[in-house]
């Protein structure tokens, strides 16, 4: 049978690889750059030859634990997340290293050097070193897919969870990738009770820890996972280049372009932890000078502890940001004493991202800022982070932090007497992910804050994954809907209102009522649900009124609509000094109309 070759994004290739390797339970929480992995599994579920449960879990910890039990039962499973998602899943992840697994289990953690779409550029390989979990660092989409069957085998041989770590440039690259028939493992769920292992108390842990260390020593010497050498021609004696992940691929192309391929010993490290002791030994004996290129932290470099190493620790390689081909060129030129590359053009940032034209969050943020110009505005992770463009987002930290941070601001300010109005904004998906415990805490600690739940009925930033209150699970499957309101009420919140932010007058009236409530003697946490579907959803756009909007000659050029409201469909004509509507981008929602102080923004007559 001939293999089918398809153009696949790295994430799609990984998803297909999981199906082909007989993975039967796949759980994830969406997060750039990892999201399309689970989506690919959902879209190609028909290819699976055995039952396959796929779920968008409420958060990464839950995804990990669901996959873990599948593995305890002897089946192959995967948990998928972005790098900061592993922080959320850290608790079960760390213990799993000791307890181990039965059926093959992979945790796929997508890192984001740069970062492009994350709150930091932490390195999952270093996390794995701390957690004592083997980690694989693929150099291309095709390689990421090709390594999956072997990774499952390794997981089953040693009964350990294995991490596959792609980075943004693997996840969001496309390549010719071959598909093959999924294997049939014919396993039935068979959980073997063993409390000394699955419920291990401290009494059992020293032995489990000893076994883990013994396994790590053996894994480091597994022949299939040793660093791969492309030998040089001897013209650069006792010198080597060591690289892993996409940086290795960048280096291969660069050497080719500089006509240096096969002139210098080049090692690709497939498994940065546990690092092969034979490799470390060989580098110490055979080379005086090595250059180590890896993203983002010096994980290989620290383990090698080579006397002649040049890397992040020695300052030869930048310690932050992506190791792009241009960055590597400069590093390599310094290391090999090559001709210095031409100076790079000044980096320019281009157009900043904004909330979409018609985005309900924009209307909500504008009203919040208008009602409480001196408020403190903790916000969270999602599209609505872009509320900072409207001055209505002051802090963004990590999933769910805004509610606890809001409560923390309140506790600190109220010690000194008066407190500013604190308006927290959190998306619906983020609320379910990590907002609920924080809300309960804010209530019992008697914080006086306004929590605005921006409910757009989807996980918008990552492309519209389902949320628990819509009654839809992965792949459109119907399920029970968990409404937000009863959760809020059950958390002890004394003020709860819901409003479409497109109705600015009503929304602002409710914000003021909420402020009165938090300042009243019996006041506490006030919740306002800002409810309007995400405008990226075509059915939302179709269902709402759309009128052609224009700006008439009353415009005084005050820029309130282009700056304070910041809709990308409103542009400022620098020559005429007036605002204009970009009809290509305007969706005719009319939320900008009340913003104009001179009523120059109008609906055109039909």
């Amino acid at each position: 049978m001939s293999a089918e070759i398809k153009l696949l994004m790295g994430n799609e290739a990984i998803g297909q690889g999981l199906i082909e390797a007989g993975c039967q339970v796949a759980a994830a929480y969406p997060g750039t750059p990892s999201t399309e992995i689970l989506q690919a599994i959902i879209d190609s579920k028909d290819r699976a030859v055995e039952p396959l449960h796929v779920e968008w879990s409420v958060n990464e910890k839950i995804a990990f634990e669901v996959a873990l039990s599948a593995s305890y039962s002897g089946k192959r499973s995967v948990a998928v997340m972005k790098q900061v998602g592993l922080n959320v899943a850290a608790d079960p992840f760390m213990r799993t290293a000791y307890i181990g697994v039965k059926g093959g289990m992979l945790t796929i953690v997508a890192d984001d050097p740069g970062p492009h779409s994350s709150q930091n550029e932490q390195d999952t390989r270093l996390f794995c070193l701390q957690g004592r979990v083997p980690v694989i660092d693929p150099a291309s989409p095709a390689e990421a897919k090709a390594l999956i069957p072997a990774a499952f085998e390794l997981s089953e041989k040693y009964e350990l969870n294995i991490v596959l770590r792609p980075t943004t440039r693997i996840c969001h690259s496309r390549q010719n990738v071959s598909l093959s028939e999924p294997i049939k493992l014919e396993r039935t769920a068979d959980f073997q009770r063993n409390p000394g292992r699955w419920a291990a108390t401290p009494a059992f842990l020293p032995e489990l820890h000893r076994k883990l260390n013994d396994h790590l020593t053996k894994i480091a010497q597994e022949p299939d996972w040793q660093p791969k050498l492309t030998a040089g021609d001897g013209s650069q004696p006792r010198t080597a280049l060591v690289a892993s992940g996409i940086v290795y691929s960048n280096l291969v192309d660069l050497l080719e372009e500089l006509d240096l391929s096969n002139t210098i010993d080049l090692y690709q490290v497939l498994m940065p932890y546990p690092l092969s002791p034979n490799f470390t030994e060989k580098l110490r004996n055979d080379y005086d000078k090595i250059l180590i290129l890896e993203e983002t932290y010096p994980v290989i470099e620290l383990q090698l502890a080579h006397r002649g190493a040049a890397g992040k620790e020695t300052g030869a390689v930048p310690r932050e940001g992506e190791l792009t081909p241009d960055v590597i060129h400069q590093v390599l030129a310094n290391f090999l004493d090559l001709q210095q590359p031409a100076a790079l053009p000044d980096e320019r940032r281009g157009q900043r991202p904004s909330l979409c034209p018609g985005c309900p969050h924009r209307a909500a943020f504008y009203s919040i800022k208008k009602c409480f110009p001196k408020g403190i505005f903790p916000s969270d992770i999602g599209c609505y982070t872009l509320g900072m463009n409207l001055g209505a987002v002051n802090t963004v930290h990590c999933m769910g932090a805004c509610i606890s941070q809001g409560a923390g601001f309140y506790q600190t300010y109220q010690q000194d007497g008066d407190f500013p109005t604190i308006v927290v904004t959190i998306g619906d998906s983020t609320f379910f992910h990590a907002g609920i415990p924080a809300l309960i805490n804010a209530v019992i600690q008697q914080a006086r804050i306004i929590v605005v739940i921006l409910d757009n009925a989807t996980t918008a930033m990552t492309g519209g994954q389902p949320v628990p209150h819509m009654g839809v699970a992965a792949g459109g499957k119907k399920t029970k809907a968990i409404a937000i309101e009863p959760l809020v009420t059950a958390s002890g919140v004394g003020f709860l209102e819901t409003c479409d932010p497109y109705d600015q007058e009503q929304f602002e009236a409710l914000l003021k009522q909420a402020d009165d409530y938090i300042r009243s003697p019996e006041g506490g946490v006030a919740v306002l649900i800002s409810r309007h579907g995400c405008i990226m959803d075509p059915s939302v756009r179709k269902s709402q009124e759309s009128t052609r909007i224009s700006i008439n000659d009353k415009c005084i050029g005050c820029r309130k609509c282009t700056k304070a409201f910041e809709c990308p469909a409103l542009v400022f004509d620098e020559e005429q000094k007036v605002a204009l509507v970009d009809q290509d981008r305007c969706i005719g929602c009319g939320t900008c109309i009340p913003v104009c102080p001179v009523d120059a923004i109008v609906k055109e007559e039909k």
Partner: protein
Amino acid sequence: MMKQQIIVSGIGGQGVLFLTRVIAQMAVNRGIPVLTSETHGMAQRGGTVLSTIKVGDFASPLIRAGQADIGLLLWEANLEVHKGLLKSEGKLIISAEKDGEGERIDATGIAREMGNPVLSNLVLLGFAVKQQALFCKAEECETAIKQLAPQKFVEQNLEAFQKGLNS
């Protein structure tokens, strides 16, 4: 073996990703290796986005400064941001209303007349093929568009491509 390094530049929502896929699919259809990199996530919300496409025997999808053979720009203002990726003899194909650097076509204007400004991506592709800038021929583009476009948009997409090709 033929090698070509291409950048596609625009802002989120303009169809940069679709254009990238069409070009890469043509390489796959020819049986030659291809690698792309794309912008996803936050920047897709109307911010500057860049795709790189490397056709031929490459290991990495990223393009160094001064190495791209062709730049397809859907957003003229990105010229200042991404021009540095092009070779000095590299070809610039730009969607713009006004005259200026590179080969230009008002792709958005043409697409707007067709009733959907987002079709500018395929108008620009047609124009690039007309300029003989890309490694592929018109028929190959049409095949790839048919493979990748949702069924109900195929006709409209092909028409946009033709408008660029025959401009």
